[in-house]
């Protein structure tokens, strides 16, 4: 009963969040200024004369000119992808700062993704294997302890509690409760 109620609460919260998010996302479709669009395109391109800097970040003469070209082309109504395509045509593939989703460079993306997914499957498989070995979850200690009379263990438990209590006050209450 209580569990069902908490499930309802969780569902209500999720529904409320979904409502908020969809409202916000539908209400204000993200609108980018020209500056931001230039920036976004520039961040996708590598500055050809720099070391490890994007066209958006670099202060080199060439990068500044390229930013100018991006701005012109975006103003002329080209889409972001078309501008990037333009630079790829004139500078080659290495101008794009992330490998394209095609041909050989698809491997750059797929190998890490495949590896992580493979890791998940492997993990699931290994865990199942491990669990099958001991379906009851009983360890050798458990088995051994099962044969020991609880009364025999009591003094050791008590000693453990005493030492823990001497070590740290947190454990003290527990010992008192045991005493009662």
């Amino acid at each position, binding site marked *: 009963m209580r569990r069902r109620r908490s499930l309802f609460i969780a569902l209500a919260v999720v529904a409320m969040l979904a409502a908020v998010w969809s409202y916000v996302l539908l209400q204000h479709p993200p609108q980018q200024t020209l500056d931001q669009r230039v920036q976004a395109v520039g961040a996708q391109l590598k500055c050809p004369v720099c070391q*490890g800097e994007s066209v958006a970040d670099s202060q080199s003469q060439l990068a500044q000119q390229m930013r100018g070209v991006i701005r012109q082309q975006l103003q002329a109504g080209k889409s972001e992808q078309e501008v990037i395509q333009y630079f790829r045509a004139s500078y080659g593939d290495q101008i794009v700062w992330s490998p394209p989703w095609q*041909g050989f460079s698809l491997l750059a993306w797929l190998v890490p993704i495949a590896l992580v997914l493979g890791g998940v499957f492997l993990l699931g498989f290994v*865990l199942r294997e491990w669990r099958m070995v001991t379906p009851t979850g009983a360890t050798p200690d458990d088995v051994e302890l099962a044969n020991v009379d609880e009364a025999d263990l009591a003094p050791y438990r008590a000693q453990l509690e005493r030492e823990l209590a001497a070590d740290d006050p947190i454990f003290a*209450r527990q010992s008192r409760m045991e005493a009662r």
Partner: protein
Amino acid sequence: MHFSDLGIIALMLGLGFAIFTGVVAVIGAVRSKPLLVSSAQRGVLVVAFFLILASLSLVASFLTHDFGVSYVAQHSNLAMPWYFTTAAFYGGQEGSLLYWALMLSVFSAIFALTARRAPAALVPYIYATLMGIQTFLLIVLSTVSNPFVRLPVAPADGNGLNPLLMDPGMLVHPPMLLMGYMSFSLPFAFAVAAMITGKLDSDWLRSIRRWTLASWTIQTLGLILGMWWAYHVLGWGGYWGWDPVENAALLPWLTATAFLHSTMVQERRGMLKVWNLVLVVTSFVLSIFGTFEVRSGIISSVHSFAYSDIGSYFLAFLVLIIVFSTALFIFRLPKLRPEQEFDSVISREGIFLLNNLLLVGIAFATLWGTIFPLISEAVGKQTMTVGPPFYNAVNGPLFVLLILAMGLGPLLAWRRTSTRALWRNLGVPAIAAAACAAILPLAGIRDIWANVGFAVCSFTAGAILYELWRGMRVRHSHGESYPVALYMLINRYRQRYGGYLVHLGLVLLAVGVIGSHFFQVQQDATLKSGQAMNIAGYRLLYFGNYEETYPGTDTVKSIMQIYQDGQLKGYIYPGRTFYQNFGNQPASLISISTFGLTDVYVFLADWNGSSQATIRVFINPLTSLVWYGGVLMLIGGVICWWPARRKQSVVDSVSPVAALATPAAKRGQTVSKVQDQSNGKTGVPAKRRKAVTAASPASSPSPGSSRPSSAGRVSNGHDDEEVVV
């Protein structure tokens, strides 16, 4: 007689003693001759002495401006202040290698001086491994990369240091990062020794973990200093560019982090031994790979200060290490059996496995992206670049999952967690995440990924803070005031609560990264005297430029006033410095003003005369959190590492079964002997934890678990901690 001659002699003697020590240590171990082992111990100290001597000689050559030494002439000049002249010691390749060898010898010496704490059987092999690495470095140092080589004719003045390196960051970042790289040698040496001797018991685990924690903390410090330096110097408004060299420094950090987590599984459950060894060896291999990558110049990077031909030496060393470690693995594998079985996926060990998968996944994706252009070129396909967009797309989601796992971890108990306990524990963090996910979009944050990231961060922060609060509350109910309770909690259970601080620091850092990645505002403007620009509520009023000339450098600075919401906040002076020795290569003087958690980052891009300037302004929200988070991570790391008082108690050493088995076992000392015998064959007393587990009270701070066991009560509250360190 120059200082450099002394340096060469010291290097040669160091090399001789390193070889001697390695050989003697192995013979001493194989023939069980304690005298030879203690001779090796002294050998380690002697090697350290000679490396300190060699390093001092190089520093002396720098400080006496002995430009007859080629390395000194290349990396310093008369105009440099003494601290940069000293720092030029590691400013080039030869010197940084010498610094590395020095640090290795110092760490080896520290190990040798504290060797009695380490398992005795391992010590000689650890000496031998360390000295093997040292021998390699000293061979390189005394042949192809000798910092003491003299020029036929000494120039009147040297070249000076690369302008990008003439920064306070130079004094702290490279030494820390190089030390971090180097420090992975010690865990590696422990792993090699363990594989040779087959002794992977809890003593081994404790020692290797402390050394790995030290390496981790140093590497964290090095990385954060590097981020801070990049932010202050490079002028593109960010601190992490997924540059190949940055990646190389991150890789061993990631695998070392994975190792620190999975050792806990080995410690508690006796599982994952092979995996842990793989992680340690990988961390060391990756740190050597990083050096190889930086030094060989196979990949272009902003760190390309020092190319040379020693790349091939490092490649050969890399291959040697990999072959050697693999052979040892194959030799040792049959004996590395797990001692306990896995109970449930929804458990602490399950989440640790997930953590490992994610960390290794991030490390692999990063490595893959770094070397993919090389692979692509090698197979004759198109040349390509792999830059930040790739890493952000692949690693971003993995990091978000990692942070989520960080929040879930403390909520789960070892072995298995009942669904009810899990739901109960999820309450507070879930409320925190839901509140964040509801409020932020309404407050105007519209980016979906930023919202997901913030919600996950608040979930994890909620989980950690709630856990801290519960611990404090329990102690408070025993009469401790809250600050004392917090202190006692952290002081008593350093590993656990230090770890929470690290996690909290990482969450803060993540919030900072999300903030500055998604909400950075950038604007370029060309201003004439008296003109102003407005950006995101800030206003910059430009007055003019002025020039300053010092020996060797010229500086241009712009004078501006900065206003926040119409109020004058102060003057800023973004500028450029030109170093005449380097063809007037400029270094930027970036002005960063912090308002609350937001940085106003002003970069002087260009200027014309004294009354016109082109500036690039970034508003970086939440960037300060990156630094606060980094500091918190460091504090947490040090707390985890900090040695605890030596304590002896029955809790540490006995399980009820072992105690019952021997009627004579009454008190701690006797019992611990008995337990040594009973666990002697397997070597890993993972079972001893049972005693603690069974006895921990249900009222302890984490009543998260409910394992149906014969012992009745289970808690994950206070059983994480080493009782003896």
